[in-house]
């Protein structure tokens, strides 16, 4: 018998006027794993998180967190969960330490326990040096860390992070990834939303891709990549050419997609000896000049492209290599 998932949602719906913000989302997150909810801006990620965390009631559907019916008993659910929203929820006029102590007290810790927990979290999140400064003076990365620390005060078993790294510089982002990995290593169950394909790939055990309020695919990063099939070919032509797709069709294993400017073609191919030569020869015979040919293993970007016919909207904050800092 498998254990009941720590987060379980079925058939969630939420509309705002004419907008179907969430239109039938179901998901399940087993204990101690990370589910990445991946989708572009406006996909319904935040609305989903809000329904999972008692902040808004679903129009239809059910949510269970740690076995508790969230809609029926939000108070009980709040004792088990931590939430870090997309926008920081800090008290700007309190110091970092005062923020954490206040959350601790409101989470029913004793004064002494709240103070000890605050010190411990400040230490774990490298904020001890700024503990007695007002939160309004914190940098973006520090605010995110303090906000996340605030969600961890009562040691929740289930944690929800809504776009935890959006807007962070690459260094702060890597630091946040480390923090998240450490949390899950301790047994926390985590649902995180992101617009960044590399983030989901890097952190999540399973990924639900959502778009327009619906889950359009679910699986591990590897399974999702397998859906795209084979190796990815990306061709850049010297001039846009209507004949290119026809010339290539016998050599590829998927539909060919063409970029807006008509110069970049993408498709899946079965790798094999002489593949690049065959492609260039076929195009050359059709009188089409080629600037660049690339093969790569499919990324989640390709998955998104294959699923929605559009590239993921938000680029990663840095397309260059991120360097680890000591």
């Amino acid at each position, binding site marked *: 018998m*498998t*254990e009941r*998932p720590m987060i379980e949602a079925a058939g969630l719906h939420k509309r705002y006027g004419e907008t179907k913000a969430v239109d039938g989302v179901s998901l*399940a997150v*087993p*204990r*101690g*794993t990370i589910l990445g909810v991946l989708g572009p801006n406006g996909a319904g990620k935040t609305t989903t998180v809000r329904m999972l*965390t*008692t*902040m*808004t*009631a679903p129009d239809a559907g059910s949510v269970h967190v*740690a*076995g508790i019916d969230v809609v029926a008993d939000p*108070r*009980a659910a*709040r*004792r*088990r*969960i*931590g*939430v870090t*929203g997309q*926008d*920081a*929820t*800090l*008290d*700007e*006029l*309190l110091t970092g330490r*005062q923020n954490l102590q*206040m*959350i601790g*007290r*409101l*989470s*029913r*810790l004793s004064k002494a326990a709240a103070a000890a927990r605050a010190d411990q979290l400040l230490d774990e999140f490298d904020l001890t040096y700024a503990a007695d400064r*007002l939160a309004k003076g914190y940098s973006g990365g520090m605010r995110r860390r303090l906000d996340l620390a*605030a*969600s961890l005060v*009562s*040691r*929740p*078993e289930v944690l929800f992070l809504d776009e935890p790294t959006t807007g962070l510089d690459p260094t702060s982002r890597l630091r946040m990834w480390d923090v998240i990995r450490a949390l899950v290593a301790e*047994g926390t169950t985590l649902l995180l939303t992101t617009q960044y394909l590399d983030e989901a790939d890097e952190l999540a*055990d*399973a990924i639900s891709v959502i778009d327009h309020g619906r*889950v*359009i*695919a*679910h*699986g*591990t990063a590897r*399974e*999702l990549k397998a*859906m795209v099939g084979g190796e990815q070919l990306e061709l850049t032509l010297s001039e846009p050419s209507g004949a290119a797709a026809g010339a290539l069709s016998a050599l590829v294993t998927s539909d060919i997609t063409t970029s807006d400017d008509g110069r970049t073609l993408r498709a899946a191919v079965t790798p094999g000896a002489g593949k690049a030569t065959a492609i260039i020869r076929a195009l050359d015979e059709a009188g089409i000049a080629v600037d660049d040919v690339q093969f790569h293993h499919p990324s989640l970007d390709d998955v998104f492209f294959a*699923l929605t016919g559009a590239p993921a909207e938000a680029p990663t904050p840095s397309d260059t290599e991120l360097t680890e800092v000591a």
Partner: protein
Amino acid sequence: MSTLTAPTARPADAPVPPPAAEPSRSLVGRAREWVADVGVLTFRNLVHVRREPAQLSDATIQPVLFTLLFVYIFGSAMHIAGGGSYKMFAIGGLVTMNLTTASMGTAVGMSSDVATGMMNRFRTLPMSRSAILAGRTISDLLAAALCGTIVLLTGLAIGWRPDHGLVGVVEGMAVALLFAYALSWFTACLGLLVGDPESAQGVGLVILFPLAFLSTCFVPAAGLPTVPRIIAEWNPVSAVAGSCRELFGNPNPAALSDVWPAQHPVLMAVLSSLAILAICVPLASRLLRKATTD
């Protein structure tokens, strides 16, 4: 679109650990938790007052300024029916006027908590929701007590004397603070309706300033033209000002008028405060519930 199956769960045979803190089931336990929440939030709001220059000056510098300005500018031109100096007449009105306009702070505080996302944080905690309103109105009551005391001290410094001594002063302040507390709940509703501090400040100003000025805070009603006079006579703010004057033992020309509120200022002030509370406490709680579930 194809949907793949979830990866198999990691084996986890550990039982669900107990949550950080169990809710109290007894009434006494829950009451104690509520009091603790209110205490934490009241303290937090008072820290804000200390750190926000605008809020601090509203409670400390503004009452001194208003008191000096009104006493020395109006006072030089004013004759009080029934005798007495303007200074003696003015202090009860100035306490009332300062507390009336200061009650706007609750609107600003509530809407800031909505606008900054603090309300989002609160609603994910297992705390009592009503403690948010209680903590806010109590910290504003304490700020109002400070503000009122500063008016009285300024008055004493420039020669105001209460004939009924300390007991009378405490009684008068109690009536004024009850009224200020009721207005706080009213402006809490405004703050929750408006949802951002700048607009809350604007709306509060438009409602509270006419309320404070169309009263007998600065001038006796008798000298006013008919329409403003009738408004001032029935305005609960006038009853509060009249209560202060009567209880302080200062000249209260309203006592010469035969309209009911002028004859029974304390009763009028207390009844209007209770009426405002009866309407605004449940309304604010409903608005907060709406603001924290959607």
